[in-house]
């Protein structure tokens, strides 16, 4: 069972930029992202999130988001996806970075989640 990460942000640049930070410490962790609305404006898109889940080579995904409305689209995509999607209400950048470093080091999902707990901010 492989574990991957999906980043969801209202801003296309943030969604595309964060994986660059994560790649540095997690070259082997499958990373995908969804940023902005269908038209590339500020917002989120359930379809883009769906696509990011599909494009991720892992079959179990840790998903991180910025603001509340992203979470609603994430949950709709989660309900539609065949993959197991874990959603975290944690600080986007900080928790994605933590998860990426730990997954790269081969840490189990349970232990990753333990380290994400103090990063819950929403």
């Amino acid at each position, binding site marked *: 069972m492989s574990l991957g990460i999906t980043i969801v942000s209202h801003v296309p640049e943030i969604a595309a930029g964060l994986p660059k930070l994560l790649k540095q410490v997690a070259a082997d962790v499958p990373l995908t992202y969804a940023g902005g609305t269908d038209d590339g404006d500020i917002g989120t898109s359930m379809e883009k999130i769906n696509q990011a889940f599909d494009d991720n080579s892992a079959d179990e995904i840790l998903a991180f988001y910025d603001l*509340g409305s992203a979470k609603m689209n994430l949950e709709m995509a989660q309900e539609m996806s065949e993959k197991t999607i874990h959603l975290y209400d944690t600080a986007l950048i900080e928790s994605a970075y933590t998860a990426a470093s730990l997954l790269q080091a081969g840490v189990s999902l349970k232990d990753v989640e333990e380290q994400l707990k103090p990063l819950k901010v929403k």
Partner: protein
Amino acid sequence: MTMALTVDNLIEWINNFSQKVNEHKDYLSELDTPIGDGDHGNNMARGVNAVQESLTNKKPAELTDAFKQVAMALISKVGGASGPLYGTAFLEMAKKSKDTTDLGELFTAANEGVKKRGGAKVGDKTMVDVFEPLAEKLTQGLLEQSEIDEAVEGTKDLVAKKGRASYLGERSVGHLDPGAMSSGYLFSALIETEGIL
């Protein structure tokens, strides 16, 4: 004596709603400015225009399909929090429409969906403050414009607990909730649709 919901009057209802949203687009965005990001009118207009395009391109054969088409267009095109919320409302109506055409029951299901999706309850200064009391009125066969106005106006004095406005806490008091206003249009559009209620 409630008259029947049909694909035709559903489309008319949605067209009425679209017209109101487009007419009041700037007002909805204005309401969203002091307590949000000022895009609710643009979001909703983008959404309802996509809905109209969808219903025109492919006229639904069944009520369930009609509700689904509305839901999918809103989910795809709105972009803001109101997208998954209205989308969920119409998806729940689509599901429920397999068993009933009663608008009270349909809106009760829609309201439950919105509450589950967004985690808001009555009093949190969101569209739930319009959906919940008016679903009740529909069930009782008592929906009137004055009730709609009251529900929308009632959000003014509330402290926002959900969505972007919640960041402002107490400072959100004194402003109408934009999603409550657009929801008000959805109910007004119903009243204005001949033979649906």
